């Protein structure tokens, strides 16, 4: 594995495509990555959405999008993307749609749909070689309903349905590895706080055809319990502590795009969020903290070996 220095050969877009005044929470990490990626994808896009926080971006009769939008259902975004993509291809082939009118199809879902209910539809869309970009904003819980634990919730996190002294007893599902196992055209993890890395990956994804994933960590002030002004800092700490590895799968290989050196202790990330407060107060849960640190250490030991 090599450490590729994140670089982006041109200035980031200075005009922003996504309109303001949305009903998202202050400091929404999902909205942050959508802003950044949308500017790079451009307005010739149609977002096919599944039930989640960002569903409330388009509320009749208003939308912050310059391009198209289709809300489907929680499990159905990749299948909806299939229908839109196939129809556009048919129209172009039959000469009923000029090529310049064609659109990039983007499935936009949260982790609830991406890791769970919509995974069968996702797996099958990849298997069919569907030409689409899947953007998942991962806020590690069913955020829109008040942050119950999902299949993306990390070990020990407190959620509305894991309120015990040890928090969530399960372990975060590795969606990136599941995608990679399907041998898609592209898959990448990003963080809104690492804009250059994100920009390079968004451009890369845009340049390819076939199934492509951008899996974005979406720090969630309301669900994770931190001050909205700290969204960027929380995202940075997720990367610096090695909890959220930045990587990409392309041409059959996984490459880490940013190896945190020195890697900060996971505590630096955990102690900033209310969802992990029970690890520190009223008493330090040394065993749990060590377990989380050991898992992160083991991950990076595998990467760097």
């Amino acid at each position, binding site marked *: 594995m090599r450490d590729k220095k994140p670089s982006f050969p041109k200035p980031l877009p200075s005009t922003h495509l996504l309109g303001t005044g949305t009903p998202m929470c202050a400091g929404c990490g999902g909205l942050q990555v959508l802003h950044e990626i949308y500017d790079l994808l451009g*307005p*010739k896009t*149609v977002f*096919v959405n599944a039930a989640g926080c960002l*569903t*409330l971006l*388009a*509320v*009749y*009769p208003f*939308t912050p*999008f*310059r*391009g*198209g*939008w*289709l*809300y*489907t*259902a929680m*499990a*159905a975004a*990749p*299948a*909806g*993307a*299939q*229908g*839109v993509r*196939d*129809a*556009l*291809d*048919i*129209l172009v082939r*039959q000469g*009923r*749609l000029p090529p*310049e*009118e*064609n*659109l990039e199809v983007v499935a936009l879902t949260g982790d609830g749909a991406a890791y769970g209910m919509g995974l*069968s*539809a996702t*797996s*099958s869309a990849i298997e*069919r070689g569907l030409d689409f970009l899947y953007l998942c904003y991962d806020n590690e819980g069913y955020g829109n309903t008040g942050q119950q634990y999902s299949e993306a919730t990390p070990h020990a996190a407190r959620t509305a349905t894991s309120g015990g002294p040890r928090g969530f007893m399960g372990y975060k599902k590795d969606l990136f590895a599941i995608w990679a196992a399907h041998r898609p055209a592209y898959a990448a993890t990003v963080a809104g706080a690492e804009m250059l890395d994100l920009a390079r990956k968004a451009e890369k994804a845009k340049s390819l055809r076939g199934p492509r994933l951008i899996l974005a960590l979406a720090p969630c002030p309301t669900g994770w319990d931190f001050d909205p002004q700290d969204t960027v800092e929380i995202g940075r700490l997720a990367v610096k502590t090695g909890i959220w590895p930045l990587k990409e799968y392309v041409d059959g290989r996984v490459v880490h795009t940013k190896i945190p050196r020195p890697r900060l202790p996971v505590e630096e990330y955990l102690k900033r969020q209310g969802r992990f407060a029970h690890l520190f107060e009223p008493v330090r849960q040394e065993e749990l903290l060590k377990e989380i640190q050991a898992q992160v250490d083991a991950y990076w030991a595998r990467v760097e070996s």
Partner: protein
Amino acid sequence: MQVTAPGRALLTGNAAAAWAARLARVDYVPAFPITPQTEIIETLSAWIDAGELDCRLVTMESEHAMVAAAGAAAVTGVRVFTATSSQGLLYALEMLYAVAGWRAPLVLVNVSRGLAAPITLEPDHNDVLAARDTGFLQIHCATCQEVLDSVLMAFRLAEDPRVRLPVIVNQDGFYLSFTREPVELPDPEAAAGFVGPFDPGTLRFRASAPLSQGVAVLGGGPYSYFRYEMHLAAQAALSVYDEIAAEFAATFGRRPPPVEAYRLEDADYAFYMTGSFATRAKEAVDCLRQAGWRIGLVRPRLLRPLPEARLRELLAGKKAVAVIDQNLSLGKGGVLYAELASALYGHRGAPLLVSFIGGLGGRDLPPEEFFAMAGVLKAAAHEGAAPPPRLLFTAEELEEVHRLRAIAGAERARLKESP
């Protein structure tokens, strides 16, 4: 199947459905196999592979995904056909509501089959009636010819600017799906002329004209607005259907009515039912007429929208009507019975309604049961009161269940005894 349109051919209901999709020149078919529907997508697939049909068929991983893709393609701007049965229709139920709400003008053929549990392959109408309130219009067929004709008409109905709602064309599994009947295949050019090119209307995705579809609403006001719009569009489909049927008759010489009335003019009594078993009711009507009965049949083909005024007109003044439901709303009774009762209630000349449940899971409806039902009708009319609903089931059938149990029990006992 070596058949070339036009002309008369022996076709199964499934082949008739596939032919209709071909004649309508569909652009896109998202598919998923399920008995007894599978022959439809196999037939279309074979034509596509042979280069006879310019269409894209994609096998999805579920009916939920299939209907999602169907609706999404239809609102992107292409003509879409799909088909399913039974559990598949129920698996797709969430998306049936969704794509109807998108006003996606697609056509779905449902090949009726009873619902689990217990799981079965044979037909009744609980599957398609579960989709009753989705916003899909429903046309119920009794013959293979009707399947073909109804699918062609369904595209016109779905795509009409006054309607813009998806349509389910229903046929019974096995009794139609796998039964060959003589079917008149229209001339391809005449069929294409009748259906016309696909007009996406305002529903399409293109770069220069951004559009948001299926968006959320906040509050009951906008929600009610859109739901009422759909309801009114569904009701508007009644008069649109008549226009389309007139044009269909002028082109092809057949006029599939919204409600079929058979030997009804001077009738005192009538059977009321949908689907292929209604052909057995016709046979029973003929027999009873020979025996001096004044009896007929009313068979709604359109179930959504329900032609209520037409039903009232046809049934006013009749003494009693046997409503034969090939479905069962558990804990209530027959769905058609409840719907017909609500259509007739409080109207002058409304007949007595007598409810029968029969034909569940493909259970036969033999002539003698129709004769028995006619007898019940006459007694009810004489007494001026309807008897309680009847679940059609014979002593022999009960005996058969007991016999099967006895065999299984004896076999188990024998296995226990043997070392």
